[in-house]
């Protein structure tokens, strides 16, 4: 593991100041200018709902919505987000759950829960642009997010169920989803 040698500690005196439209709230924040959006959300704003799996843009765990587009917040410089609309898992529901959160909870689409916020936001972005996605479109939209627990199947089913409910349909999970085949 040869490592480059920057012997001096990084400078922390300079701070960037930006204002985010964060989950619908005007949110000014000051931070060291090298920080990523992920770091600013977690460390400077205390929004630890956004998780990280690699900080290299490989796993999708840190997905948030930036101007309604899913982005990997570990690859976005926070300084580039001034005035922009950022949505995280903390903004998905209020005192009640968003339909996606309901179905993820009921179907077991969240097991360990670590990748869940990223999946929720990627799925939300999908449903906002396509209220009735096919299974293949869901697969495609979520292909940048890794989950090691579920095998993705309950996630697809949760997205499909939430999509139906968001379209105003009365939809319930299929019995084999929750009980398996016998």
């Amino acid at each position: 593991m040869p490592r480059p040698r920057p012997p001096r500690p990084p400078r922390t005196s300079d701070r960037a100041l930006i204002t985010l439209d964060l989950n619908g709230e005007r949110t000014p924040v000051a931070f060291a200018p090298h920080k990523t959006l992920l770091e600013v959300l977690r460390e400077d704003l205390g929004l630890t709902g956004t998780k990280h799996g690699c900080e290299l843009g490989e796993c999708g765990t840190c997905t948030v919505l930036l101007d309604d587009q899913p982005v990997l917040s570990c690859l976005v410089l926070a300084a580039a987000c001034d005035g922009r609309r950022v949505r995280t898992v903390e903004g998905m529901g209020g005192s009640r759950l968003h339909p996606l959160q309901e179905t993820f909870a009921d179907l077991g689409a969240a097991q360990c829960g670590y990748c869940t916020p990223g999946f929720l936001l990627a799925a939300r972005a999908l449903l906002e642009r396509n209220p009735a996605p096919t299974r293949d479109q869901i697969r495609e939209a979520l292909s940048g997010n890794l989950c090691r627990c579920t095998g993705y199947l309950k996630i697809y089913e949760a997205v499909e169920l939430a999509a139906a409910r968001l379209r105003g349909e009365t939809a319930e999970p299929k019995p084999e989803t929750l009980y398996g085949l016998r």
Partner: protein
Amino acid sequence: MACGRERVVGKPQRKVDAVGKVTGRTRFADDLALPRMLYCRLLRSPHAHARILAIDTARAAALDGVRAVLTGAALPLPFGILPVSQDEHALALDRVRFIGDPVAAVAAVSEEIATAALDLIDVTYEPLPAIADPEAAIAPAETPIHDYGDAGNLHKLVSLEFGDVAEALARADHVREDLFFYGGSTHLAMEQHAALADWSPDGKLTLWSSTQTPHYVHRALARVLELPPARIRVIATPNGGGFGGKSDPFGHEIVVAKLAMLTGRPVKITLTREEVFYCHRGRHPTLMWVRTGVTRDGRITGMHFRTLLDGGGYGSYGVASTYYTGALQTVTYQVERYKFEGARAFTNKAPCGPKRGHGTPQPRFALEVQMDKLAEDLGIDPAELRLRHLAPPNSVTANYLRIGSMGLGTCIEKVMAGAGWKARHGRLGPGRGLGLACSSYLSGAGLPIYWNDMPHSGVQLKCDRGGGVTVFCGSTDIGQGSDSILASIVAEVLGVAMGDVSVMTADTDLTPVDLGSYSSRVTLMSGNAALQAAERARAILARHAAHKLTVPAERLVFAAGRVFDAEHPETGMTLAEAVQLAEAEEGTVGTVGSYTPPRSPGRYRGAGVGPSPAYSYSAAIAEVAVDPDTGIVRVPKIWVAHDVGRCINPATVMGQVEGSVYMGLGEALMEDMAYRPNRRLLHKIPSLLEYKSPTTLEMCDVETYLIEDPDPNGPFGAKEVGQGPLLPIPPAVANAVYDALGVRIDEVPITPEKVLKALKDKARGAGRYGPDRFPDITWPAPTVVAPPWEGGDGRAAPSPGASPSPSASERQH
């Protein structure tokens, strides 16, 4: 408890932590912060094998913002998960054994400064020859990787024989000999390991850590830090995935504790993704040689099984892993006589350990592919061959494992029907195929990791006068839903809603010991402990309610938050009123429950690995489509059936089955913990992008059958589900590739390159890819035990030099 009358058990329930997880409110270890917290980073070895001649930390310590620099000299005591393998140090003392071995640590006011300080630590190494693979480890070494083990760099040698296998093979109608290799893979939990330590000047240490085994971390901290266990509190944070990768005590947990003690400030570490690959403890790459004799109708008269495990640089669970590669061959199909020889080698790579299925997916792959070959040799359908010779329920195997309920036959029949096996196997045309495989797994190891007579799981239960119930248990929820199992069982027995049960787990100060989330033990063991505690609480409440209602206690029903007369349901009271009555008479209403597994019939040295209170069973059929031009194997669908005994919560059972299929598919097709032998054993791919795991685009459709064959040892009949369904997937895929192409890939992962090589080989006549030799190993004289049907009593036959009774060191698992 009769099946079918339950109100909570058997119904799909939202997990008790589900809302926390979908709202981002769940606090994982890296989400924690304390005032004045320092950040820790570790310096890791750039050498696969080297002596440390000197470490100079002066320049790092002088860096502005650095508060402490630590080397191995400050933590000289060794540790390790198994009592027989205390071979790790929190930071290397004088030797590094793989690239990534921790050497020094820095605590600083920011992560950036701590990282910068690592570059200012000067380490002088003397490189040593590195051992790249187990075969190299067999040869005598000038500088062995460790100064202990059974022979040079061979960490462990095992030899067990149950009946005269040579004789059984000699009289078999047909004998096959095959070689297999199962590649190494890693857990790849989405959460990187993290730990936060806090030291209080009154001598109390608190550690929060993403660990599956807080009890063992507690013990390791006490040992290495030389603190009384009573002054250490370990809290396991919700694990963002474990799969076995967080079941060892780790050096970084000890390091942050020591740094907190030195600085008087909280210290946190979060490993980078690259570092998680160095922690590893994943699947042992395993070479296997199997010789099996069968009668004309496929009955296994004798099996001789050899394994050679690539252990990496440290012991970890490896002694247990070695035994496990030979333990469960006997619980699926009847094996009349059985011989096992296993060896684990130290090599200069990241240490291997327990990954989902711990030591059993490798031999299961070999066994199930060989069964497919035997079926073809004998002209018997592979499913039929298995169905004819199932191990019977309520029986004891050749190696003295006691089987209780056994639903494998039903599992096979379900997947056969689902996949249309009879009509489609062998008939899908070129490039498409079906393959079948089965498996079994433990519902918890029958013996603890360190030898003791205490329960494996304990529960305390408190009834509040408001009607709420709190369950305290040391078990650790790693995403599999163990907290919810506790809540379901208590809610069932006391007749309250899941939401009225609070679950407090995995805190060594607050909760009774549970050994941890490994070996698929939690539902059965902590579930039984919770069941006992809840039944005791119910008895107390029933006594007082019966007195007040003047109804016999045995006629009372606990349901819907009430206690009432079964014959006159309107005669009753709320649970809260029952608690108040009991509390007025007896004081605080609290009970305990605990669970100790039944004693295993095996009494020989090595009998400690394999016994379990109950075995789960699975069968799977994989369908593949292989492109003969590229060698790419696609798996459109898998049918899987799992005998879980009884579903406590079918929704979480479904999740475990599907997740196991997914992980098995990854191991079958792509996951590979690869090193570069020509680059001094540098890890080839320590990143989530380069270590290939299935994305949504590779994951197959899964049709899941849940089979319920209740086991009397399980709570409400429940057995395990978290690991077993992974095991049949790799051999099912390999057998399906054979059905599709007529080539045998006797090795996972089944990469396109291997398929193409096998197809090229087929053009020349054979059509196989896999290992072609098993190296010569000097095996010790076997421990000889007569099978039960040959008059054996579970004890080893006396032999010169054999110890008369099982030694404590062999009771690991």
